[in-house]
Structures are given as structure tokens and as C-alpha cells.
């Protein structure tokens, strides 16, 4: 499902040092968690796995993750002071360290975010080097996407017609679904949809209004090369 990489991402990203995997990639994972939460975060529980757990100190991995959660892109110099800024914003955070080489890529972070409205999200992402990342679990579902394109994450009851209804709602507005990936557990299905354009608010509302839909979130890509996020 991986998209061809942009040459501007190969020659970049433009980022705050010192490590594209441990700093830039970490802030991207944090930022995607923030987008999935879709609320002002009040609490973050972050577990660092494998190499991340061992070598995060001094790479600013911790500051980058917290910065990402605050909404800072990898090239945002505020990352340097993200702990101080998080305190001001009322974000509490806690780091845990673990190791599981069988299950996770060597640079992996799991982020459990709670928002001010009480919502929460649980995601696991891997930093692959060069600032590239992949999100690998959301709410316990296996996923595999990089948020380089407009992405929708939907969790819904696994009933006949659910996929058809969702893709119908998106196609109705003329948005083209480039890729769709589904994973399932006993009752629920997780869908990750990658699209050429952003899905508008009405479409999101419509999908949310299906009674069997539990969770709909939009993740927007970064503008090429600059690593800034589209607002």
C-alpha cells in the first residue's frame, strides 16, 4: 500500500535535528495521534519500544513526540521547548519503556491520548528512517498507512453493506478513493481509506451518522518537502 515516495521527502524533510528517525519521525507520529484524537489533548501516555526506548535520550524523541501531540510539525523550532509549552497548555504526559522485537519495528512508539472532551485514541507507529513513518495499530486494529495522502480511519460494526455505504458517501461528493484496507476483530471492522483529496465536513458527518459507525477520523498529509501540515 505504500505510495511512491516524494523526492522532496528524500531530500528532506526540512526538520529540527538531531535525528530524522528519532526526532522528525517521532513528531510525525505524535501529530497523527493528535489528528486522530481530534480534540485538545489533556493526557498522553507514551510507550517507547526497542531502539526508541534505548536511545531516545539526547535525540529529543520525547520532546518531538510531545511537540507532535501539541501540533508542531517536524520543522517547527518550538519542538525544542515542547515540554515547557505542554505544561502551559495543560498537557500531562508520561513515558514508559518496553521492548518487543517480534511485534514491533525497532523504532516504535505507542501513544494513548485523552482529550479535554473525554475522547481517547490509542495508536502505535514506527519511524522507518529519513523521517518516514507508518502507523501500525489503531485502537488495537492492525493498520498500515503513512498519512502521506488524505486518510480516513473508520471503525464500524462489521455488518453487510457497511463498506458499500461508506465508500458510497465518499464517492457521492466526487472524491476518489485510491486505496482501502480493512481489518477485523470479532464484531468490528477497521477501515483505512486513502484518497486523492480531502474529505469534506459534510461527508464526515454523513459517515458519522450511520448508527453502526463508532469512530471516524481524518488525517491530513504534510505539504511536500516542508513537512508543514495542512491546517
Amino acid at each position: 500500500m505504500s505510495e511512491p515516495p516524494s523526492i522532496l521527502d528524500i531530500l528532506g524533510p526540512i526538520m529540527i535535528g538531531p535525528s530524522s528517525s528519532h526526532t522528525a519521525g517521532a513528531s510525525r507520529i505524535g501529530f497523527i495521534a493528535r489528528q486522530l484524537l481530534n480534540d485538545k489533548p489533556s493526557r498522553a501516555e507514551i510507550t517507547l519500544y526497542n531502539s526508541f526506548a534505548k536511545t531516545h535520550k539526547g535525540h529529543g524523541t520525547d520532546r518531538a513526540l510531545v511537540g507532535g501531540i501539541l501540533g508542531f510539525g517536524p520543522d517547527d523550532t518550538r519542538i525544542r521547548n515542547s515540554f515547557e509549552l505542554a505544561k502551559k497548555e495543560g498537557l500531562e504526559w508520561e513515558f514508559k519503556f518496553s521492548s518487543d522485537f517480534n511485534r514491533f519495528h525497532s523504532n516504535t512508539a505507542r501513544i494513548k491520548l485523552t482529550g479535554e472532551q473525554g475522547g481517547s485514541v490509542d495508536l502505535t507507529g514506527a519511524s522507518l528512517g529519513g523521517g518516514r513513518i507508518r502507523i501500525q495499530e489503531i485502537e488495537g486494529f492492525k493498520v498500515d498507512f503513512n498519512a502521506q495522502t488524505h486518510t480516513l480511519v473508520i471503525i464500524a460494526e462489521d455488518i453487510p453493506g457497511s463498506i458499500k455505504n461508506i465508500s458510497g458517501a465518499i464517492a457521492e461528493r466526487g472524491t476518489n478513493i485510491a486505496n482501502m484496507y480493512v481489518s477485523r476483530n470479532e464484531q468490528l471492522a477497521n477501515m483505512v481509506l486513502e484518497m486523492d483529496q480531502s474529505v469534506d465536513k459534510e461527508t464526515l458527518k454523513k459517515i458519522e451518522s450511520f448508527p453502526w459507525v463508532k469512530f471516524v477520523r481524518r488525517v491530513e498529509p504534510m505539504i511536500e518537502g516542508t513537512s508543514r501540515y495542512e491546517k
Partner: protein
Amino acid sequence: MEFNYLSEIVDYCRREGKDIAQAMVDYEIRNKGTTRERVYEGLKRILIVMEESVEQGLTQQVITPSGMLNNWAKRIYQSPKETLGVALKKAVARAVAVGEVNACMGKIAAAPTAGSAGIMPAVLVTMIEEHGISRQRILDALLVASAVGLVFAKNSSFAGSEAGCMGETGSAAAMAAASITYLLGGSDEQILESIGFALKASMGLVCDPVGGLVEEPCTTRNAVGVANAFVSAQMALAGIKSLIPADEVILATKEVGDLMSPKLKESGQGGLANTKTGREIQKKVFKIVKEEGRSS
């Protein structure tokens, strides 16, 4: 439009009557739905950040919190002793400058990674100064470098934790070698040869940063990467052949990376990180970078 190997890019160039830089513009337009103007704007932004990071390291105070790096770039730049003329000395200083800025959480362009971010800017700024090359041409050299990075990313890895330092300073040196060869009028074949030379020289390079910090040996490896790039381009431009084609050298870096012990791949458990002095520095660093695990 997929480019999996350098040979495919060269074939495309031959078919379309284009050079590697323009092939990469085509790649980006087709895969990213972007325009030529936006590609060049993006490249310009990257070049500006590269130039600024060189400038910062040569003019501002850069002392890392660990104390391992302490305004080295300026010291090299101003050194009265020159092993091979002023051009090499300055090129080395520029690479170290970006390494220092990066270690101080400054802004850099990770081409292709932050740990190896000093090589491309040092080489490009040096090419502008020594050969009077226009900044517009430099943007094309960046495109040529991106071709190397693209194929390397597909068939090997930029992550020190997967491919060791081959993946970082090795791939950056290869990208830079390709840029130099291109800028000095080398053919597509010669560009590929220079990539092969640079990667062969980096084969098996481990990732063993002391204290887990991107400072030592990273910064000086960037400086050596610059020399590698100029040497590799020099050989290629003279018409020397790398014998093992560049694509196969890239595949070999993948194999070697897989064969390398995880201890030698960014774990802090082998190589320089595991020397007596490396361990002592690590202990000191951990005291300085005090535990900040909890917010409250």
C-alpha cells in the same frame, strides 16, 4: 511511473531524451500530481535550509549539551593548515557545521537523513564556490541526488538501525557523488559509476554513536563523506568503471545491513559506543540530560 533501479532511470532518460534531473521531475509530477514549478519551489526551500545550516554552523555558537561538539566547524574553517588546499578544508568545515547545527536541535534538511545532513550541503555549497555553478543548476543536482536516494530507499534502508551508517552517511555520499558528477558534465553512466564508488567505500559501515547521540562519530563521518563524494566523482569523471553496477552495490548494502549484528546498528551496544571512553562519555551524558520522563 515507478523507478526501482538506477538502470531503469537511465533507460527512461535514453527513451525520452532527458537527463536524470528531468526524469526525476517527471517522476514527481506523475506520482504526486504536482507541477514542475512546485517541484522546483520545494527544491529551492531545501537548498535555502541547506545553505542556512552551513552558515549557522560557521557563524553561531554551536556547543552541544553533551559537550562532545564545540564549535569545530569554525576551527576547521579558520585552520592555517591545509592538507589539500583551501577547497577541501572549507568543504570539510561545512559538513561539520551542519552536523553541529543538527546536534543542537537546529533546522536542517535531512538529505537523506539528519545524521547525514552535512554531506549534501557541504558539497553543493562547495560546488557553487569552486566551480561558479548557478543555484538553478544546483537544484538539478539535487534532483539527481534524489534519484540515488529513491532507489536506495526502495532496495536498502536509510535507517542506521537497519543498514548501519551505510544507510546514512554512505547513501548521502553516493547522492553527493552523483551531484558532483552531474554538475561537471558526467554522462548518466558516469553518474552511476560515482554512486557505485561511494557506496563501495561505505560498505559495512556500522552505526555506533557514542551515548546514542548523533554527534560522535556522525559529524566527522559527514566530513569524510564529503571527501568520499569528491573522490568517487573524480574517478567516475575520468572514465573509471566500478565493475559492480551501482544497482547491485545498493542491493549488497541491503544484504550487508541484514547480516550486521543489531548491536552494530544504532543500539549503543557495539563499536565506538561500546569502547571504554564511549561508555564513560555515555555515563556523563546521561547525568547531563537529566530524566524528564514525567511532567508532574
